[in-house]
Every structure is written in structure tokens, then in C-alpha cells.
């Protein structure tokens, strides 16, 4: 009760401070000799108030204060302590409060870390950021206040969806939001820089850190969500082209492109308009990600509770922000005429620009696949869905030139270049093609496309691998990230080529056998936990080589809410995962058993970690080397 009141008033005070801050900033902007000391302290105060509000919500969850509607809807007294805390952001209201928390935190860090930037620029960034912050305050208070009362006070809550009671999903939203919200700083900063016409090399090297930071978090956030889907949803895949996954991939694609453009901008004063547009779209995509997930417009397996009013608000807010930024872009942006287009075709710039096109192409494919069903529904009320074949067909063929340019591009020099050591480049290409023919030759289906795909990713793999030795610490960050990417594509390809699956219905004691494996359903046992009962099956699986593995997948039946979830049992080794999941069928003695052998799963996760590690190396490096 008490905490709800404190939390609620902190929010109102924070909103008020946002307005005060805009007033102070405008006043200071007219007379910009020194940054008003009040601005910094008020920004800190605003952040502090949101922290208090957030802590109040956490405490309400921990104390199971069911007079709070959010707690009532999403918690339960028997829920483990860890998930009481994590449950704070496992719902719509709490996760938006987390958004707000990160928004205020980032603008504070921005103000502290930019002491040597022009004062006008800092103030203007603050103003734009405060506009976003105020928008989110109003959104939170008006449509999704986390501190609403219920009276009479219920004695027990409704509980958290069991599928969300999972460690990976407890930290997935905060990490993802750090990435999403990081792009808000890039957005505000690019608008400020455009208005003041200081989109320069100096600005680029300063904003690069922010782009890198949010890129790292976004990458890790997507990875965590993917790992969770792999072991919790029981489908044995890591990416389903589900709309909710797509909306996190789209800002990532835009941000990755932006990162590369900023590198070009930092070297040479070109592509400025492109950088501005990309910054705006990254943030717009991050926000529409929140909008699409939270409004329930998307028909997705991850759909949570929805409310049309929320969607409408974010939509209006988003459109006004985009309108504002386009206005600024067209009225204030002046292109530098002096420095244009004096680079040649065979240069690093060209390679980056061409790969930018590919990225934009991938982005538009994902975008169309995600929003087309919504449009069709609105226009003709026809219900459709777009499945994985659409994405595979449109994306996979273009991965080949993408990978090849990714391999050759970094070898080129800025402005104008001739390819050195052609012999190496060509011989590596031949080796890659030869190797991939060896790998693929036993598979009759799609021989050609698989060979081409594997050779191009092997090519990138070898070239980056070789660069570790001949270049050493030069370009290390980029090399790690590109190496990670080649490893990722290779692992995904091998994974999809060599996976095998058995789905069958078994009774306890029965045995399934085919040429690939023998599955014995030995026994089941039951276990009682605080908030769920579990049924654990014991399976003995013997593969074609006679290797025996004991696997015990679990079926959890939670008491509040009364939902069953499957906990897959996964035996991970360096080369492959053995994955088994069971499911009970209502009023039947059959269990639905799904057994999969998934090669290189571990490498998919590792390579994504490697990619973000590349970002980290670049982040901590003092100065970008030539």
C-alpha cells in the first residue's frame, strides 16, 4: 500500500521534473556559456525518482502486496523469491517502468560523459531526450500505471505465467532494453547534431561508443531470448521468424548498418545523411518493437495481454517523433559539398555501402513479412500469416554475396585500393569450395545452394582466421566480429543440414526404434515443489553407433496459474546437442515424445557471444586504429 503511493507520486514528480528540465534547457540554450548546474542535478533527481518508483514496485512484488493491481495480476505468494523480483519486469507495466528507468539513466550518463562536447549540443540532446522521457511518463501514468489499486484487497495473486519463470527470461528484458533504449540517445544526439549542423568526424567518434554499447546489449538480448526459446518452448529450434523475434531483429539490423556507417563517417566526412536516417530508423524500430509487442497487434506465439489504447498511444507518439525528426532532417541538414564522392569503386567505402544495401534489403524483407499481415487484416480483414519459407527464400540467396563482400571488404583500403595478395584470396576460395563439396556431397537435396552457401561462409571463416595471425591486434575488433559471424552462419547451416528428429507417442515402458535411434521410455516419477508438481520421465536413448544416453525431461504443472510447461532435457557436447521433451496428453496414458539431435547448437550461441565480444573490444579500445 505505502510503496504504491510512494511509487506513484515519484512518477508524477519525475514527469514534472521533465517539464522543468525542458524549461531550464531552453533558457540555458539562449545563453550557453556554461551548462546550468541545476540541469545536471535535476536530471539526477529525475533518475533518482524513477529508481525509487522502480524499487517500490520491486518491494510490492517481494512483499506480495495484492492491493497493487500489477502485483495481483502477475504474482503469487508461493512464487520463488527470485521470480518475485524478476516478475517486476515480466509484465507490461513493469517493463515500461524499466524502459523509463534506462531512459533517465542514459541521459544522466550522457551528460556526465560529454563534458568536452559543445554545450549547445549537450543541451539540445537533453531536450530531445526529455521529450521522449515525458512521452513515456505520460504513457505509463495514463495507460499502464504500475501502481493501480484494487479494492477489496485480494488475498492471493493470479501468478506469473510459468513459461516466464526462467532465469534466461528474467535477465532477457533488461539486457534487450539497454540496447533498445541506448538507441534513444543516438536518436536525440543525431537530432541535436543535425540542428546545430555538427555531424562531423568528431561527433561520429563520440557517438560511436553509444552505438557500440547498445549494439552489444541488443545482440546479447536477442541471444538470451533465443536460448530461452530453444529450451523452454520445446520446439528444439532457436529462431522461428515469429513477429516478436523479428521486431528485435529489425533494430539490430539497422543498428549494425549504422555502426558501419559511423565508422566510415569517422574516417571521412561522407554518408552523413545516411547516418542520420539510420539513427532515426533504429530508434523508430526499437519503439515500434515495443509497440507491436505490447499492443497485441501481432499474432504471435509470444502474445501477452493486450490493450488497444496502449497501442494507439505509442503509435501517435511514434509518429510525432518521426515527424519531428524528418522535419529537422529536411530543414536543418546541409550536405557538405566539398568532400563528396572522391573515392573509387574498389575501396573500403564501396564495400561497406554495398553491404549496407544488403542489410537494408534483409531489413525490408523482415519488415514486410512482419507488418504485411497486419495491413491485410486492416484492409480486407483476411487473416494470414507469413512463415519461415518466405524469409528463407528471400534472405538465404543474398547471404552469398553478402558473405563474400564481408570477406574481401576489410582487405581493401580507404579511398582507392588494389587487392594485395591475390594468390591467397583465390587459393582460400578454392579450398573453401572444395571443402564444402566434400561436406555436402552425401546430401542429394539442394546440393548446389548448400555448397555455395557453405563455401562462402567457409571463405569468410578462413580469411578472418588468417587475419588473426598476420594482422595480430590490428583491426582485432572487426576481425573477431566478422569471424564470429562466419562461425554463426556455418553453425546454422550445419545445424539445419544435419539435424534429425523423432516424434512419437509412447506409454511408460514402451520402446520406439528406427534406423537412427532406439528410445526406451523406462519410467516416470513425481516430484512436489513449492509452486508446481513435476512429472519426470526417464528415457534411455541409444543412437546408431550404440552410444547410450540417459535423458530425463520434465513436465511441470504449476498450481497458479494452472499451466503445464515442458522442461526439455538437453545433453550438450561440443559437436551436438541431444534434446528430448515430453508432453502429457489430456486423459490419456500416452506421452508425446520429441527427440532431436542438433549438431553445433553450442557453436551458435558461442559465435553470437563472439560477435558481441568483437563489439566490446572495439568499445574498450582507446582509439580506432587505421
Amino acid at each position, binding site marked *: 500500500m505505502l510503496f504504491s503511493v510512494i511509487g506513484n507520486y515519484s512518477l508524477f514528480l519525475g514527469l514534472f521534473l521533465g517539464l522543468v528540465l525542458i524549461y531550464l534547457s531552453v533558457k540555458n540554450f539562449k545563453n550557453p556559456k556554461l551548462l546550468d548546474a541545476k540541469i545536471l542535478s535535476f536530471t539526477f533527481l529525475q533518475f533518482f525518482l524513477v529508481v525509487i518508483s522502480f524499487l517500490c514496485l520491486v518491494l510490492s512484488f517481494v512483499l506480495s502486496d495484492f492491493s497493487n493491481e500489477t502485483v495481483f495480476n502477475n504474482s503469487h505468494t508461493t512464487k520463488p523469491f527470485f521470480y518475485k523480483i524478476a516478475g517486476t519486469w515480466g509484465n507490461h507495466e513493469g517493463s515500461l517502468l524499466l524502459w523509463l528507468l534506462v531512459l533517465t539513466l542514459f541521459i544522466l550518463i550522457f551528460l556526465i560523459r560529454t563534458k568536452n562536447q559543445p554545450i549547445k549540443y549537450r543541451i539540445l540532446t537533453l531536450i530531445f531526450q526529455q521529450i521522449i522521457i515525458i512521452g513515456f511518463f505520460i504513457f505509463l501514468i495514463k495507460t499502464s500505471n504500475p501502481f493501480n489499486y484494487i479494492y477489496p484487497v485480494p488475498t492471493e495473486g493470479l501468478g506469473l*505465467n510459468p513459461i516466464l519463470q526462467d532465469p534466461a527470461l528474467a535477465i532477457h528484458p533488461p539486457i534487450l532494453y539497454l540496447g533498445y533504449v541506448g538507441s534513444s540517445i543516438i536518436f536525440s544526439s543525431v537530432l541535436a547534431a543535425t540542428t546545430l549542423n555538427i555531424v562531423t568526424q568528431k561527433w561520429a567518434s563520440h557517438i560511436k561508443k553509444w552505438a557500440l554499447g547498445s549494439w552489444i546489449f541488443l545482440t546479447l538480448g536477442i541471444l538470451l531470448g533465443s536460448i530461452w526459446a530453444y529450451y523452454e518452448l520445446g520446439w528444439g529450434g532457436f529462431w522461428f521468424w515469429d513477429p516478436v523475434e523479428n521486431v528485435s531483429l529489425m533494430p539490430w539490423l539497422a543498428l549494425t548498418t549504422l555502426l558501419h556507417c559511423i565508422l566510415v563517417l569517422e574516417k571521412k566526412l561522407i554518408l552523413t545523411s545516411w547516418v542520420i536516417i539510420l539513427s532515426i530508423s533504429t530508434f523508430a524500430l526499437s519503439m515500434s518493437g515495443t509497440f507491436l509487442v505490447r499492443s497485441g497487434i501481432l499474432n504471435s506465439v509470444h502474445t501477452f495481454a493486450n490493450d488497444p489504447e496502449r497501442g494507439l498511444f505509442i503509435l501517435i507518439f511514434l509518429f510525432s517523433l518521426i515527424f519531428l525528426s524528418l522535419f529537422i532532417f529536411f530543414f536543418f541538414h546541409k550536405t557538405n559539398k566539398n568532400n563528396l564522392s572522391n573515392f573509387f569503386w574498389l575501396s573500403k567505402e564501396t564495400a561497406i555501402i554495398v553491404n549496407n544495401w544488403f542489410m537494408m534489403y534483409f531489413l525490408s524483407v523482415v519488415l514486410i513479412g512482419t507488418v504485411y499481415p497486419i495491413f491485410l487484416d486492416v484492409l480486407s480483414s483476411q487473416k*494470414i500469416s507469413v512463415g519461415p519459407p*518466405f524469409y528463407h527464400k528471400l534472405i538465404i540467396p543474398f547471404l552469398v554475396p553478402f558473405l563474400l563482400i564481408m570477406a574481401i571488404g576489410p582487405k581493401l583500403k580507404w579511398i582507392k585500393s588494389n587487392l594485395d595478395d591475390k594468390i591467397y584470396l583465390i587459393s582460400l576460395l578454392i579450398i573453401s569450395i572444395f571443402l564444402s563439396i566434400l561436406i555436402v556431397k552425401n546430401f542429394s537435396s539442394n546440393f548446389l545452394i548448400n555448397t555455395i552457401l557453405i563455401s562462402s561462409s567457409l571463405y569468410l571463416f578462413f580469411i578472418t582466421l588468417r587475419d588473426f595471425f598476420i594482422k595480430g591486434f590490428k583491426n582485432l575488433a572487426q576481425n573477431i566480429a566478422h569471424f564470429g559471424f562466419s562461425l554463426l552462419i556455418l553453425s546454422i547451416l550445419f545445424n539445419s543440414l544435419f539435424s534429425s528428429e523423432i516424434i512419437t507417442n509412447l506409454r511408460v515402458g514402451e520402446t520406439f526404434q528406427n534406423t537412427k535411434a532406439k528410445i526406451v521410455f523406462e519410467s516416470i516419477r513425481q516430484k512436489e515443489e513449492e509452486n508446481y508438481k513435476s512429472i519426470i520421465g526417464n528415457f534411455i536413448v541409444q543412437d546408431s553407433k550404440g552410444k547410450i544416453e540417459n535423458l530425463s525431461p520434465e513436465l511441470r504443472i504449476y498450481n497458479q496459474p494452472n499451466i503445464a510447461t515442458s522442461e526439455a532435457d538437453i545433453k550438450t557436447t561440443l559437436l551436438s546437442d541431444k534434446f528430448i521433451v515430453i508432453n502429457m496428453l489430456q486423459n490419456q496414458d*500416452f506421452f508425446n515424445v520429441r527427440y532431436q539431435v542438433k549438431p553445433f547448437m553450442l557453436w551458435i550461441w558461442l559465435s553470437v557471444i563472439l560477435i558481441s565480444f568483437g563489439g566490446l573490444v572495439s568499445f574498450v579500445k582507446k582509439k580506432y586504429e587505421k
Partner: protein
Amino acid sequence: MYGRKVKLRFLFVALILITLILTVFLVLKSLEENVIYFQSPSEIKALSELDKKKIRIGGMVKKNSILVEASEVKFIITDFKNEINVTYTGAIPNLFAEDKGVVAEGFLKDRNFFSATKILAKHDENYMPPEVKEALGER
């Protein structure tokens, strides 16, 4: 005739245009091929011609209709006006149960038989896919 710069710029613009047109063409074409339509049992009964393409059917799983055999699962999807028999081989999601909403993806054999290749899972027991809600009317 023209300077090198003009030629370059012309080439650049042409390249962009070609890529754009190609993109739009590719995307539209493959959308047309890969889109999956959603239908209710009543809509299928009313079909004049059976579609060979993959579709989705949504409704409620009829009470006492689930029948499990070693290799497949049979059940009936109903929208309380019409129903359709479904046979399915594959993994079954946690929230699949009688008297609950379901979406099945697969191919029509005729107006009464549907062979499903996938049953879609939903995260929330109270959640009803919007299509199913609509197909069921205001129940």
C-alpha cells in the same frame, strides 16, 4: 560527351533503381507463394473449391474428441456451428487440451478432413488467438 562524374552518378542511380525494383518484385512474388490463410470450420464448409495450399484452421478442440495412437493424434476442431476432423503427427504443445482454443496448420483432404503438420502453441492459458475469437463469434 559527359564527364566521368556524371556517368558514375548515373550508374549509381540506375543501380539503386534496379535493386529497388528487384526487391519489390521478389518480396511480392514470394509473399504470394508463402502466405498462409486462416479459416474457420464454417468457412471451409462453405468453400466452393478446395485449395491445395497450406492453410490454418482455428477453433475449439471438441470435448472428448482427442484420440491418441502411437503414431498420430486425432481430434475435432469446432466453432460450435461446424466441425472438422483433424489428424496430426508431430509434437504437441503444452496448452493443447479439450475445450481450449487451438490453431492447426496443414492441408485439407476434403471438407471434413484436415491433415495437420503443425499445432501452434500459445503462452497463456486464457489467451485466445484473435482469429479463433472471431471464428467463434461472440461466445
